[in-house]
């Protein structure tokens, strides 16, 4: 077990750190979360800067146009971005983290040449059309229908939880091409251009009051067969391929961010005097120890990925542990600020105590509720752990 970085890794870190120190301060202010075109402009401009500096597709293979960084370098990359308060992938996230990797592995040379460079350069934005109102945890029950008509598929159905559709050029779409009850065996993966007729998008407001995702209504949308990734009815396998891209670096930014959040809470508690209460210190120390442990687990997963190509059993354990922990961290923040938690607006404290920072606490708390649901509920994670890792029999 070795937690020291090699000379090459330290060099990678140093170069990146210097570049970030150079460019991040020059970035303009972040776009309002409600102004989608501005968000696209901001996020894709950042992506272009990464591209020009050679950091785009950090973990993509070279043949896909990526940098093919090792899992450890990828980890360093995330650490340094977080440390520099650099922008996160933003609207580029489906393209960079999901659709792109799928095309790298499953695309024909033509498809790779068509789709990958614009993602890496920040020229094209992707969204995801996987889940449906009736197919959440049970994704294989999806019903959006695609019927072949010449060299096009005609797609009709409804998707949900589609992020960034307002500004997306393409949608990675799962459709049913097999019988209604074909489940995993009758699904096909399509790259749907978002400018086609028949696409309607209705944003869904979250409990945080924002509109990060929405519903996609598809009525006879024509998608070229040339946009199909892999074979017809083989879309389930194609989709799963992307998971093999995971190198244990998922949610790493969130762990590091949460550590900073805890330190902020400590500063605030010291200012308000709450720090003198033993149970405040104990709760904070306990949460901190858990975060430290998850950070250790992340490095373990990354190390296993570096050795074997896959992060191993740690993934679900880490996801379950982190999402549950995030909720408890959110509750701790809310408890610490007491009445100030009743406002989403940033408050100034009395008696010159400065800003309370309550907008952060409230956001952390409220967004925490999505953590145990999105990307596999905690219940599904426990099933996966029990059945795939511990070998307990299926229900």
């Amino acid at each position, binding site marked *: 077990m070795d937690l020291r970085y090699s000379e090459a890794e330290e060099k990678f870190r140093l170069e990146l750190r210097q570049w970030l120190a150079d460019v991040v301060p020059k970035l303009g202010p972040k776009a309002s979360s409600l102004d989608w075109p501005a968000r696209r402009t901001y996020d894709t401009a950042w992506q272009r800067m990464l591209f020009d500096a050679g950091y785009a597709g950090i973990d993509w293979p070279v043949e896909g146009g990526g940098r093919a960084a090792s899992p450890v370098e990828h980890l360093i990359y995330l650490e340094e971005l977080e440390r520099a308060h650099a922008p996160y992938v933003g609207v580029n996230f489906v393209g960079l983290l999901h659709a792109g990797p799928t095309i790298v592995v499953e695309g024909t040379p033509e498809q790779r040449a068509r789709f990958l460079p614009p993602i890496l350069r920040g020229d094209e934005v992707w969204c995801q059309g996987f889940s449906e109102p009736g197919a959440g945890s049970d994704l294989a*029950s999806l019903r959006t229908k695609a019927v072949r008509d010449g060299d096009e598929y005609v797609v009709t159905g409804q998707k949900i939880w589609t992020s960034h559709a307002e500004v997306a050029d393409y949608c990675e779409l799962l459709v049913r091409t097999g019988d209604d009850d074909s489940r995993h065996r009758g699904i096909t993966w399509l790259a749907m251009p978002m400018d086609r007729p028949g696409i309607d998008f209705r944003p869904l407001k979250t409990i945080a009051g924002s509109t990060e995702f929405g519903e996609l209504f598809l009525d006879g949308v024509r998608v070229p067969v040339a946009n199909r990734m892999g074979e017809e009815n083989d879309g389930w396998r194609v989709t799963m391929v992307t998971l093999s891209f995971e190198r244990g670096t998922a949610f790493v930014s969130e762990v590091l961010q949460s550590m900073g959040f805890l330190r902020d809470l400590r500063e605030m508690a010291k200012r308000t005097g709450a720090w003198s209460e033993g149970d405040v210190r104990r709760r904070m120390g306990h949460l901190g120890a858990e975060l430290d442990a998850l950070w250790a687990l992340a490095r373990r997963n990354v190390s296993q990925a570096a050795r074997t190509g896959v992060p191993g059993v740690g993934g679900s354990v880490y996801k379950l542990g982190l999402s549950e922990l995030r909720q408890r961290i959110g509750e701790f923040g809310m408890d610490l600020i007491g009445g100030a938690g009743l406002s989403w*607006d940033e408050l100034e404290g*009395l008696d010159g105590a400065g800003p309370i920072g309550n907008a952060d606490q409230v956001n952390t708390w409220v967004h925490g509720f999505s953590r145990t649901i999105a990307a596999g509920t905690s219940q599904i994670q426990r099933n996966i752990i029990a059945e795939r890792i511990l070998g307990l029999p299926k229900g």
Partner: protein
Amino acid sequence: MDFELSEDEAALAQGIRSLCAGRFPLERLRAAEGGDGLVDAEGWTELADAGVFSLQLPESAGGIGLGMAASSVVFEELGRALLPGPILASHLASYLVPDAADGAADGKVMVGAVRRPPTSGTEAFVPALVEHLSSLGVLIVVGDDGLAAVDPADVDAVRIGRPLDPLTPLWRVDELPEGRPVGGAEQARRWRRDQAVLGGALLVGLAAGTLDMAVAYAKEREQFGKPIGSFQAVKHMCADMLVAAETARAAVHAAAVTIDQPGVGDPERAAAGAGLLASEAAIKNGKICIQVHGGMGFTWEVPAHLYLMRARVLSQAIGPVGGLAELVAELY
């Protein structure tokens, strides 16, 4: 000893439930989200006519002359209906500080309340946040050593753009006026005690409301070819919700009766315990309700979050659970 609801109490609860369902259905409340005047004057009068504000005012003073037990069943229903507005303070003021709350009992005046922020200790840095300020006729300031009445027009306040609960508008007040003294330390203690119990009743209503929502969704929503409520993980979450709600309900009712009937127990300890358990039940059940609804639970459309945010508002009003627990420990 008969700790079940009496026929009168059950009828009272049923009456309030019908009133809320007919007059204040959730769709209607939601239509006013984020605005002022969430309960119009006419609606407020109907609540008054149903006795919501005059329940504990003596008959000699024009009230109904019932006690905390009756109020607790009424407030549970109001909580379950997510009824907005300063209902609890208006109710408390009508019998605890009747002189300062003229018009409260018959719904002519809305009374609000706010705890005077402490001048030392961990909460001393948070400004006072006053609910429903623009609708109030009187604001009662609850201090450790007494109650004071403040004219809302005298309050220098800034409206909060985004209150946590979209059905509870909030104003920030940096300097609360001293106001006119309307009660001493004993009355302030009674205010806090009765507020814990009836705030607890509202919270029990929230806990029961989210339980009902979760169970209904678990029966209807299908995944993997069957209702999600047939999976043990979901079943057990719902069972835990029921335990939380029923336990808190028993605690709230016991506290109410213990206040009404001298000699059956320690009302201070019962009230603190009831507020504590009701707070936790409402927050826990709100959270589980979101989880049972999956992604939909995270949408504004599904009202789970409204119950959860209201639970935070009420929990804050009756005091942090840590303080309530310490009070129970002292009196045990």
